[in-house]
């Protein structure tokens, strides 16, 4: 009698349970069952994904993410208004819209780790700062800013008579009507373009980047790459996307965006990571998920988390 899909499914479930518990001496039998028919393999594959999704769902169930808070901050208040006692967890959920003062002197706008902020300029352009970022702005009318460190996303209203310029160290990035993002830290300068065109100038070199293009400048040189446009400044949406980037960089980005304090062992830091990470709001759930996706063990020590090379692979 022909076996039905229902039978296969029941068998697949029985094998999944044994696999999770420890399939041990029955491994041979299990593999033979998979090899027996394409129907068995499909049934098991479907179940494997259901099983993986279930893990995600059950994990998330542990915590209800806090509601995102939007606050309009008076221009005279600096971020210190928050006070040092405000924990990283609150900062992580905190996003402020800064209304820039009219005719004010050049001002340094900075965000703490995990704090994100939006700056509205007079011409309708918008700058979004990720956590742990410092940006120098002339005044609200200015179209000339300087990114000292961190990550920022620029949605620029184009004005041919007054180009929008971002200075980053020795480099200048000039918009030709566009949305783009810049990352600057000790080791790298990265410009990625979501829309329009951007002129990147560093010393005698000049490159024009179109939508879906990025340039990565580090000690080892400059490298232009194609990117997915929806990846640009993924931090605004809590999405972290990478293709063969070192784990150290991934962790740095998460620290910046969320304000967590993470330590990675040096061995793991240089390992490449490819993939997209979407983190839940709850810090504990987020760090656990991060560890899971990077293949690292997570140990909480007070306010810090240690991410260590796995001593255990099985979930």
């Amino acid at each position: 009698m022909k076996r039905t899909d229902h039978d296969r499914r029941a068998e697949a479930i029985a094998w999944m349970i044994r696999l999770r518990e420890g399939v041990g001496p029955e491994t041979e039998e299990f593999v033979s069952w998979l090899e027996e028919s394409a129907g068995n393999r499909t049934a098991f594959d479907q179940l494997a994904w259901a099983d993986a999704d279930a893990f995600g769902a059950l994990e998330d169930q542990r915590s209800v993410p806090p509601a995102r808070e939007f606050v309009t901050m008076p221009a005279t208040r600096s971020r210190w208004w928050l006070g040092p006692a405000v924990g990283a967890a609150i900062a992580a959920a905190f996003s402020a819209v800064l209304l820039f003062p009219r005719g004010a002197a050049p001002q340094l706008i900075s965000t703490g780790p995990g704090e994100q902020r939006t700056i509205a300029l007079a011409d309708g352009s918008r700058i979004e700062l990720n956590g742990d970022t410092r940006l120098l702005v002339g005044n609200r009318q200015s179209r000339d800013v300087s990114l000292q460190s961190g990550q920022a996303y620029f949605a620029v209203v184009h004005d041919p008579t007054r180009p929008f310029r971002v200075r980053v160290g020795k480099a200048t990035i000039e918009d030709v009507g566009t949305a783009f993002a810049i990352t600057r830290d000790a080791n790298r300068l990265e410009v990625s373009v979501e829309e329009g065109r951007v002129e990147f100038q560093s010393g005698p070199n000049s490159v024009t980047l179109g939508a879906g293009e990025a340039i990565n400048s580090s000690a080892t040189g400059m490298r232009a790459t194609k990117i997915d446009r929806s990846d640009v400044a993924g931090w605004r949406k809590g999405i972290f996307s990478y293709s063969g980037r070192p784990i150290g960089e991934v962790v740095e980005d998460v620290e910046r965006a969320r304000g967590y304090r993470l330590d990675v062992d040096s061995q793991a830091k240089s390992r490449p990571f490819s993939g997209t990470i979407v983190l839940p709001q709850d810090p504990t759930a987020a760090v656990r998920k991060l560890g899971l996706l990077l293949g690292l063990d997570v140990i909480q020590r007070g306010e810090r988390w240690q991410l260590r090379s796995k001593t255990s692979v099985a979930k």
Partner: protein
Amino acid sequence: MTRSGFGARASGAGLRLVEGSQRPLQIALLENRGLLLRFLAARGVPDPEDVYQELWARLVNDHSISHDPLSYVMKSAHNLVIDRIRSSRQRLLREKAFHELSDVTDGLAGEASRSDRILIARQEVERARSAISELGERNSKIFYRFRVDGLSRPEIAREFAISVSAVEKHLSRAYRRLTELADAPDVSSPERGSVIMAAKTEQ
């Protein structure tokens, strides 16, 4: 005295350090190489040898102790397959765009955009969540203990004061409910399937 010079072996409740020997996980990997390659091939990976190497690389520094190393290796192999397919789903689309520029339109036209795929992944977890909550509190608790906390059927049976076969019924029910969702037309199983076949190794 370095850690790598020793193999750890569990014996009964105690732990024995076996100097100079290979660790049980390595032994299990070596002794069951053929079986593992067959498993990986049956799970649809196009490059079982490479995945086996990756599994080796993952487990060679694994100092955890298992009474049943083959079970541990199989669980790891299963997880590795899932992880690889997940990340290759993303990478593959990129590689296509990079290296087969002439095929870009063909290669990407049928695919959902990245944000759509992220959305699909979220929806899958969301569906799984609602499916689990539909199971009722007791059943979803049992499933949680099994799937997340990694308890065995007998352990769960003791905790909930029910029979082992009752635990099995609960687990089957949970899995059946979850796979019924996978039958729904808008779930991305076909996409997953096609990526399994095309997945490449990243060295």
